[in-house]
């Protein structure tokens, strides 16, 4: 009988030790900053380490999901949100939040060194742009050749019957990349033509994905040879040796700004401001440039390996205000038209 008691005694002992260990860990913990973000997960650790190296009193706690999910979460949580700062989220989404009075105006130390065009017009700005991510096509050159697919050069090319079932695109409701595609097509061609374009494109789409980088990764593996995605992901995969070509369609490229804004309801406002200050530094901007060609601080961006040439010239004249105002309506219409495809092609 004693053995049973001993066994249970040991379990209780382990539990006690574990609790104690957790307690000690908590005592040594740095102050946490809760950051909502849509930045690609593999980049986050690097940003957190760099910031924490400069600000040893703080620790970043990421809440990461795709743009649509993070936006919906922030809008639903509103003033009860645990977020201290929203960071690396589409400007379109931050505009919606600013409109609802969720963001606090704050001019980070050194914000005057950034392009004024890439931040909120109010002073102090409620949101500050960090870097632009730009739509692109990822095409698997190996599979394209094997399947006899011509290289697409424009968005309109994607309507050709030869691509039927070979294209994968992010769902604009969940993915920021998906939404900037849809909103750019509308800004280039006007809404009616954009919808009829998407009606046609829908016929060629294999599946819609949750995230904006997934189409490029699928193209990289050849699962679907053509992915509607963004330039960084394609360039990165190409650098890693995947057989992809990154193509900038001729009509123009949708883009959005990864931006940050401090929550009015932030529990750790000092931490949020520290992170905001760090995010406009030259060091941070150089880090942004490792993956993205267009960053908020003028004059420091170097060309990124494997990016389509002159990608800046093809970026459309993006009207964030229009995109933010019409986002909900566009997504509802999109969902109605393409959300429930009964079977994949």
């Amino acid at each position, binding site marked *: *009988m004693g*053995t*049973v*008691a001993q*066994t249970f005694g040991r*379990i209780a002992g382990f*539990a006690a030790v574990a609790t104690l260990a957790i307690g000690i860990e908590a005592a040594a913990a740095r102050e946490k900053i*809760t950051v909502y973000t849509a930045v*690609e*997960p*593999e980049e*986050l*650790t690097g940003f*957190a380490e760099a910031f924490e190296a400069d600000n040893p009193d703080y620790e970043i*706690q*990421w*809440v*990461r*999901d*795709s743009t*649509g*999910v993070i936006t*919906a*979460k922030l*809008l*639903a949580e509103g003033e*009860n949100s*645990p977020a201290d700062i929203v960071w690396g989220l589409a400007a379109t989404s931050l505009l919606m939040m600013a409109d609802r009075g969720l963001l606090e105006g704050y001019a980070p130390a050194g914000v005057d060194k950034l392009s004024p065009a890439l931040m909120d017009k109010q002073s102090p700005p409620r949101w500050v742009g960090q870097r632009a991510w730009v739509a692109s096509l990822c095409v698997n050159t*190996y599979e394209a050749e094997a399947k006899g697919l011509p290289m697409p050069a424009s968005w309109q090319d994607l309507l050709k019957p030869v691509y039927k079932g070979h294209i994968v695109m992010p769902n604009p*409701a*969940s993915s920021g990349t998906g939404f900037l595609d849809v909103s750019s097509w509308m800004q280039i061609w006007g809404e009616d033509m954009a919808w009829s374009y998407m009606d046609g494109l829908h016929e060629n789409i*294999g*599946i*819609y*994905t*949750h*995230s904006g*980088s*997934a*189409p*490029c*990764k*699928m193209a990289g*593996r*050849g*699962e*679907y040879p053509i992915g509607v995605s963004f330039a960084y992901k394609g360039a990165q995969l190409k650098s*890693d*040796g*995947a*057989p992809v070509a990154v193509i900038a369609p001729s009509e123009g490229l949708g883009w959005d700004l990864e931006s940050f804004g401090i929550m009015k309801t932030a529990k750790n406002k000092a931490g949020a401001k520290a992170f905001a200050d760090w995010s406009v530094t030259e060091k941070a901007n150089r880090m942004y440039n490792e993956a993205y060609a267009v960053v908020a601080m003028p004059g420091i961006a170097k060309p990124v390996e494997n990016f389509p040439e002159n990608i800046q010239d093809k970026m459309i004249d993006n009207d964030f205000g229009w995109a933010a105002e019409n986002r909900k309506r566009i997504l509802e219409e999109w*969902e*109605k038209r393409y*959300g*429930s*495809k*009964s*079977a*994949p*092609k």
Partner: protein
Amino acid sequence: MSAADSTALAGRAPIDGGRLVSTLGLLAGVGLLIVFVAAPLATIFIKSLQDDLGAYVGLANFAKYFSSAGLIQSIFNSVEIALVVTVLACLLAFGYAYALTRTCMPGRTLFRAIAMIPILAPSLLSAIALIYLFGNQGMIKGLLFGNSIYGPIGIVLGITFYVFPHVLMIMVTALSTADARLYEAAEAMCTSRWRAFWTITVPGARYGLISAGFVVFTLTITDFGVPKVIGGNFNVLATDIYKQVVGQQSFSMGAVVGLILLFPAIISFSVDRIVRRKQVAQLSARAVPYVPVPNKIRDRAFLAFCSLVAVFLIGIIGTAVFASLVTYWPYNLTLSLVHYDFNAIDPNGWASFTNSLEMAAWTAVIGTSVIFLGAYFVEKSDGLPFARGLLHMLAMIPMAVPGLVLGLAYVFFFSNPLNPLSGFYGTMAILVLSTVVHFYTVSHLSFVTALKQVDREFEAVSASLKVPAYKTMWRVHVPICLPLIIDVAIYLFLNAMTTVSAAVFLYAPDTKLASIAVLNMDDVGDQAPAAAMAIMIVLTSVCVKLVQVVVTGSLLRRTSVWRRRDGH
């Protein structure tokens, strides 16, 4: 004096601390289950009648739901998938169970073990493996004859893998209770085997078949991992609820879909309860257990069949292992551990895995103790028959509640700032609690069954010797039930490692679980690391299973001396 009298007398002893403890325990059990089961579920009903801001809107949410063609389509899609999986899984499992119980096929123990493989993995794993097998770059996609794995075919195959062991266990039980005398009579009357099969075997197992059918149907319609990964644009109810809640943060619509999901689960649960009761009564005390005799042709045919099924089961796991090790599928097939470097691709990295271990350990320890005590009070306390009945009834509810619905109910109940328990929200504790509750019923029923077998004389004797009830419990009931206690702890641990459904709504950034990491990594298209994390879960489960075998063996040897006749 008869035994009944002595029990009654002992039970009515004037001042009995033990009895006070058991009364308090019983009430505490009822209280806990009301707070953690009944109350959260009630909030789902309330929430479905409110808009997202909390104003009462009557049935407007339901009206909105049923006016959306897309959402209605999901109901048909879900039912269609569930029916196909039910037929497929039941046929396969029946054949497999028949081979295990009614034939002399070689390697039956091995086949039984292989069939349990899917229990060790999250349901997402099968979907990821199927993409490597049958996707557009799949190794054997030719077998689909040009059909796409993304959609109904993938969902059906993935879920069939995942439900197989659950169905098989029910089928094996159903087929194990045969009365050999019926077959002897059939043989004596020169009845053909075929006829004997349809007139004796099938009717004898009919309750098991019905029960299995409903269990598969419910598991299929409520599983979320497989359609999420491989469903493509084929929407089902389980992915709709996730899209509504996570994608659009529309909690009231989520509540509506949750209630719709609750329907098949409740029906299936009720049928299962009725059927199980009947099956117990079916076998009379004079029945002679059926012992199969060798039959070369039949045994070989079943060996071939079971081998096919086993190849499928092992193939799925094997493919996932392979997927996690290939450097860059399908262009660079050198093997490497690069995809196991979770810290490089996800900010939570390996922490998700250690979170899962922590969560599973707490679930096993807390769940086993609480559920055992609950079952003990239901079965062994005197008096308060109403409270005992209520506790038992409350303990039955979780089985009828799909994990997604339970998770959503917890969000509603615990995130409300007016709730004094809202401090639980976003902690490890709420993940542990939801997991304990999610898997409460099966554990509770096992303990109740085991405790029923312990003679009530023990309590009577110890009461008359003035030994407090808790001492009797500690010295008699716990050691007797020890093998089962370990089984339940392992059952809870494994389920906590693999579960996605309830946790997907409840995890916070620092309590993200391995199974959720698999989902997130798959979402951003990192399939190989997702497979690697799923394999980490499988490896953990396998280790835990092995530890169980060793520990159970040694503990039994030490604590079950009383079971042996020669020992002292």
